């Protein structure tokens, strides 16, 4: 079970308080009506799904109800950072130490 740092409560909390919400940093096309079916399909369905570093959204559902981002290694499940909505991740690749 994950121990997740909520950047709004400024504490680690048990995974039971959170819901995962999938890949982070996807933004809704500014003009959906101008999108082709392919572009729209890519936006709503197609994902990176990497083995390794993954930037993903979690919501502190039973807590402060805030959505935030997490950088997690999908192989080791190590959480490398939590950061607020609207900010960018600091970690974008695994260091040798983290390679596993």
């Amino acid at each position, binding site marked *: 079970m*994950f121990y997740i740092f909520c950047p709004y409560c400024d504490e680690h909390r048990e995974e039971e308080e959170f819901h995962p919400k999938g890949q982070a940093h996807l933004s809704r096309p500014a003009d959906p009506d101008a999108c082709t079916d392919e572009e729209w399909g890519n936006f709503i369905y197609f994902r990176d799904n990497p083995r390794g570093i993954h930037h993903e959204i979690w919501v502190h559902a039973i807590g402060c109800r805030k959505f935030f981002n997490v950088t997690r290694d999908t192989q080791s499940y190590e959480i490398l950072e939590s950061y607020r909505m609207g900010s960018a991740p600091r970690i974008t690749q695994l260091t040798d130490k983290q390679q596993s």
Partner: protein
Amino acid sequence: MTQFNRLDNGGRIDRSKLLSFEFNGQRYKGFAGDTLASALLANGVDVIGRSFKYSRPRGIVAASAEEPNAVFQLGATEATQVPNVRATQQELFDGLVSQPTSGWPSLSFDFMGVFGTLLGRMLPPGFYYKTFMFPQAAWDTYEKYIRKAAGLGRSPREPDVDTYDHLNHHTDVLIVGAGPSGLSAALSAARAGARVILADEQAEMGGSLLDSNDRLDDKPAAEWVKATLEELARYDNVLLLPRATVNGYHDHNFLTIHERRTDHRGDRAPANLSRQRLHRVRAKWVVLATGAHERPLVYGNNDLPGCMLASAVSTYINRYAVVPGSRLVLMTTNDNAYRTAFDWQDAGREVVAIVDTRAYVTGAWQEEAERRGIKVLKGKAVIEARGGQRVTGALVTGLTTDGNKVAGDSQLLRCDTLASSGGWSPVVHLSCHTGSRPVWDDDVIGFLPGKTVQRQLVAGAVNGRFALDDCLTDGASIGAEAATNAGFPAEPAIVPSARTRPETRAMALFCIPHHKRNSRAPKQFVDFQTDVTAAAIELATREGFESIEHIKRYTAMGFGTDQGKLGNINGMAVAAKSLNQTIPQTGTTIFRPNYTPVTFGAIAGRHCNDLFDPMRYSAMHEWHVKHGAKFEDVGQWKRPWYFPKPGETMQQALDRECLATRESVGVLDASTLGKIDIQGKDAREFLGRAYTNAWAKLPVGKCRYGLMCKEDGMVFDDGVTSCMGENHFVMTTTTGGAAGVLEWLELYHQTEWPELEVYFNTVTDHWATMTIAGPNARKLLAELTDDIDLDKDNFKFMDWRQGTVAGVPARVFRISFTGELSYEINVQANYGLHVWEKLFEHGAKYNLTPYGTETMHILRAEKGFIISGQDTDGSVHPYDLGMSWAVKEDKPFSFIGKRGMKREDCVRENRKQLVGIKTKDPSIVLPEGAQAVDDPNHPVPVPMLGHITSSYYSACLGRSIAMGVIKGGHNRMGDTVHYPLTDGRVVEAEICSTIFLDPKGERQNV
């Protein structure tokens, strides 16, 4: 029966507490402090089971968690049966009742045994893949017989009488194992003030120190254990958990500990006490001090009762004062096991010989053996045990120095106990649970914990440090390191010294060769519980199963309830040898939770029966119960389904509720509908983006129905939202959808449109909501309010007003889900019951009738109103539902779902569309889910048009009505379709409008 293997003194048992217990129908006596296993050995019980495949007699091999054979059925009553209890881990209590889990009709004579020996050779690994195939139908029959042989113990047939619970912990340092390393680690960490949990699977803490006659600072080790535990018990930052197995190591240092609180006290737990407890621990740092398991050596007939682990023999002697035989032959690859021979001799029994597989070995241990006059046979090994129901002899032969072949001739040593030691395997199980692979170490001759991302440290034997002194000092410094890492600077505790004899290098030997090749030698068992032999593993490799995972799966090695604690390494060694490679080349050993089995109930905790899942109640729930409501589960809510009068059938009740509502007035408890309070200057803009229809011009005091779609354009919720103020709306959602909708609104607000000034809060529970519907609704309401102008022109359909109802401030919404004149009264929930009851006081004269969800469904269906989640399934968009009126295409902002419903497949012809369905025979009510076809006589697969989503008998219309989806249905009005039912009938029906009653909507506008 007397305990003739029991010593008169010594051991940690309490001879003043004589306990009686039952095994296999016989009564025996033991002492407090015994395990079931030690008590059986004390009573000289040799055969405790039969092996599952070859049905050979089996005895007790080990003294703790690694025991493969002594696996029993416990329980004095049906409800307290427990299958597969390891006798070596079950403390004895008075009145304990146990049964072997295998062997029928009796352990001593077992005709499966005969069958086994005759057909044994017919059962190589994987034999079942190779036969039982013909004829095709026959497997079912074969399988019945195979299944008869399956399983060890049996499940109870009655529900559990005991309870189980959970306890959540957060700790700085969790120490697993209270042996020498764990105890000294605990001292270091505890003294630094860290929060420490020390867990150990045994009843008494101390681990190997209790099993040996080691001395610390020249005092019995047990004294240091006692002093240490007393000190630890004094710290309020320390939690000592005996009888508690750390059985799972999960991500981010979350571990589960299975504590057996009452299993040592009796058949069932005392009142108000949970039988077992699962501790859910989040640890800053974990110290694994799990020790090591001794490896038996693999040789012919090594499963005969009387063949035991050397260390187990010592444990029984030192801890339980039980000597499990009279004449011992000890075979070893290392010095450490010599102690067993010494213990045996000190217990006054005869040591026939120590058979040491090492040809050239001289040192303190050999000298001590010589001093004691014990014969040591060097460079030799026991290649096979002799005997029937118990060992009677050991066949000893010389070995080549590499141990790969036998050399020279054999001699038979008479004995009744054959102890063996192939060295020690660190207990790396927990460190494997989080995916870390253990690594082989040639010096340790075993696997050590591998690289991990967990905050984990290892101390003592699990780290390959077997000498007692090393364990103590290693533990002390690792404990200090863990505490320091957790923020409590610590010094290693000073630990006593145990001047143990120096040991010379052990020999890496696992499977003892035989004159014959393994395929023809007497069975050499690697995994006792699954009856896997060395020959079986060689056969697997011969057949091409070369990955250790293939070998395990093909032979079932390691798949027993002991998870191969004894056998895995020996098995890998056999495989490696037959594949001509090293053990690390052959693979690694992986373990998964649980370390030892955990009761389902303990994992479920109190989340069972009445507490399995919350039941959500409205403020009027008590009234519903009192008035005989039948309830429907909607999400976690208990909603009144219908209110039968005595003697009424469900249909009669529904007819009555429907008619009363249409003819006079009915009332529904609508409190469970989700309600979301929306405030902020951008609330209106947000609604415009979240709903498919227009919200820009909805004036204060008005309500509007809206549809919500996901980005794919498919409807996922709907409801009425009211404008409370220019910056204030209250949204209603479906009962089941409430939480999802709120989270969905927040998602868009927080991730996509944070610039919009709006706040969302749930007010679902705050308001009690009662809907009065029917021609007399206004009259009834008028009797209960004096400050709301109910005039039909001043308080119009889709208006809301604030005022007082039955003396309680209320918000009244004139909205209708029934098509009747209808008012939805909202009052603060604390007053809901009062207002509800007042309604009935005044409503009697109007025959005010409470109705439930089923009547609500019928009434709305008569009007063709959809229920999201019943008439929709995530694959229909508003146009499919014929609700284009609820979609405003030309809103400036491209609302959620707009683009999605324009995709190629969403605009094609012939989509399934929602229509009304009228059966030709008005008395037939189509089953919901029934599928429409054009040609019922079409051969299968029959092309389907769509299914019935809602179907009822309408008392008001005197006929059945239904809604359903039909391919291209909107252009097929009047067409006839057929519904082939599962009972064989085919029902003819006509496609029609979804609105069956009052198409102009006059009834609600009176």
